[in-house]
């Protein structure tokens, strides 16, 4: 059953029905026992009463023919009475009583089938008077009494059931209205509409749902905004160098002045270099993405790794690189490939943002990591949390960057079980990037 309303309706109706049925069964059994007790008492009383009356009239019946006793009108239909002498002769019987002997039992209660009907009989034996008085009633009558009682209970209940069903159905509809309203609201909204549902008036049971949905909307909206930003930045970073290449190529083809042609070709070369680096960074980022969370760690000689990485990169004239002596033989637990990637991108970032000066690699003074300091312009404080996002380029961006270097450095550090911390140098203008263990 898929409908909540239908399911609740069935459950409620079934439960109500079960309770009623149990109550009826209870009442049936209880009243049956009660009725039996009351009727048995009546039989007993009636038998004793008749027996006490028999003494006065017993002589009258000596002619042998059984007399018919005038039965009290209250018992006319229900009770039958027979008086038998101890030697087995019927002395008298009430009107309507069967002619056959009601019971063979000498005394007390007994049951017997007479003329196709089951009788319950109480027998009183009076040895002095020489008679046995039997008073009995039909079991079917007793049954009818109980059945009538139960029918009296069940009939109105059966009449009320449809009414109750309608009532339950209607109140369920009313109770489930907030859900239906919310579903309607959700179905009617635009696919791009991520505004919050009004949870203020929702009932307590529905509010968690509304709150959860609103939370989800917020997250989806944030993810979509982020996606849009990344797409926009990526488009800009990828297409601008291509636009530069194409423009310079067209200039080279159109210009008559050999100096202009040469300049354009030089620009084309540097644009190709930049694009090559961009492609390499994109591939690095893609590989880091594909590699999963962390890589197996080994003990890495960081000094050797930094020296090797940095020496392989040409720095423009005017920029010196220094590797602090304490870094030689300095070891860290890391994945060497990821660490190399982080070091290279940090170094590139440092070099790109400087006209001239010193890039220094050193061990952290407190231990537990390495640090690179440059003498560039640093990063505005409000941009620090964003610079490790892909394609983000701040106000102090270098003309040849693509907004990927710091993102890759951060990602590579994380893959290596390390973390990257960026801050502006306290001692002078410049950026200080730390790769921290753990």
């Amino acid at each position, binding site marked *: 059953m898929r409908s909540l309303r239908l399911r609740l309706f069935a459950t409620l109706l079934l439960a109500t029905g079960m309770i009623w049925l149990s109550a009826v069964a209870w009442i049936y059994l209880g009243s049956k026992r009660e009725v039996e007790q009351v009727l048995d008492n009546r039989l007993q009383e009636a038998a004793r009463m008749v027996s006490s009356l028999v003494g006065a009239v017993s002589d009258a019946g000596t002619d042998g023919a059984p007399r018919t006793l005038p039965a009290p009108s209250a018992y006319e239909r229900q009770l039958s009475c027979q008086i038998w002498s101890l030697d087995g002769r019927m002395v008298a019987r009430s009107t309507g009583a069967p002619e056959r002997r009601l019971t063979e039992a000498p005394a007390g209660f007994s049951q017997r089938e007479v003329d196709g009907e089951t009788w319950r009989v109480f027998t009183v034996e009076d040895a002095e008077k020489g008679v046995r008085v039997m008073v009995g009633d039909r079991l079917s009558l007793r049954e009818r009494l109980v059945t009538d009682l139960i029918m009296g209970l069940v009939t109105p209940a059966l009449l009320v059931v449809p009414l109750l069903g309608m009532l339950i159905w209607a109140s369920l509809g009313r109770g489930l209205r907030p859900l239906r309203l919310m579903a309607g609201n959700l179905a009617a909204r635009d696919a791009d509409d991520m505004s919050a549902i009004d949870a203020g008036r929702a009932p307590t049971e529905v509010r968690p749902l509304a709150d959860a949905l609103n939370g989800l909307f917020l997250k989806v909206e944030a993810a979509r905004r982020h996606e849009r930003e990344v797409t*926009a*930045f990526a*488009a*800009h*970073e*990828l*297409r*601008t*160098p*291509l*636009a*530069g*290449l*194409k*423009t*310079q190529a*067209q*200039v080279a083809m*159109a*210009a008559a002045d050999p100096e*202009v042609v040469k*300049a*354009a070709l030089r*620009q084309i070369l*540097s*644009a190709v270099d*930049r694009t090559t680096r961009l492609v390499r960074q994109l591939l690095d980022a893609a590989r880091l993405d594909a590699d999963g969370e962390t890589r197996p760690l080994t003990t890495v000689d960081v000094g050797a790794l930094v020296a090797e990485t940095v020496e392989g990169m040409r720095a423009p004239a005017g920029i010196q690189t220094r590797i602090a002596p304490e870094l030689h033989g300095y070891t860290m637990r890391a994945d060497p490939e990821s660490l190399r990637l982080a070091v290279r991108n940090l170094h590139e970032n440092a070099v790109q943002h400087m006209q001239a000066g010193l890039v220094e690699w050193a061990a952290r003074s407190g231990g537990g990591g390495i640090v690179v300091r440059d003498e560039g312009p640093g990063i505005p404080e409000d941009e620090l949390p964003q610079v490790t996002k892909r394609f983000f*380029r*701040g*106000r102090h*961006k270098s*003309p*040849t960057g693509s907004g990927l270097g710091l993102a890759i450095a951060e990602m590579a550090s994380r893959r290596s079980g390390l973390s990257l911390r960026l801050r502006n140098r306290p001692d002078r203008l410049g950026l200080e990037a730390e790769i921290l263990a753990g």
Partner: protein
Amino acid sequence: MRILVVEDDPILSDGLRAGLGLSGATVECVATCADADAALATSRFGVVVLDLMLPDGSGLDVLRSLRGRDDRTPVVLLTARDGVADRIAGLDGGADDYLGKPFDLDELSARIRAVARRAAGRAAACLEHAGIRLDPAGLVVTLDGEPVPVSRREFMVLAALMERPNVLRSKAELEERLYGWQEEVESNAVEVHVHNLRAKIGRQAIETVRGVGYRMRASA
């Protein structure tokens, strides 16, 4: 024509300076919103070529403040974001045209000429006056159907004068259109160009108003 290029990528910016220069324009390049605002506030340009993603903000802000000053300088947006929604936002923001990166230099030049023409209230691509015909796309001048060889600077002077044949152009105005900020201007440069032009298209074609400037002489 004097063009302001607002583009932060040095290679593209350099390419635009050279490429648009080839088609006879004087190109100034700036790389930030702040520099663009300053340039637009202090001098007049025929067309602005504006990148949308700049290091210190969005080109749309530059556009908005330009239009906020009721400056009608034509603006061609140049951007990597060329989705339909972005185009609509750019054009509704007051841009006259929109070109996605990477673009064709010749197409950009043509669009710049087109928005400049529209801004000047002309429909025809070529300028004509008294038998002189000037084709901005090909940098070709003809006199009564015969081609007249002119230098780039001479062409620009003639174009400036022929855009509004009856309007006086001062020497300073012509110098501004002819030379970029970094270029050294000889004090008599404009006079020399006008002199050369008169030699090629006829002595009577350009009229000198002493102490005020130059204009095209109405045909007799």
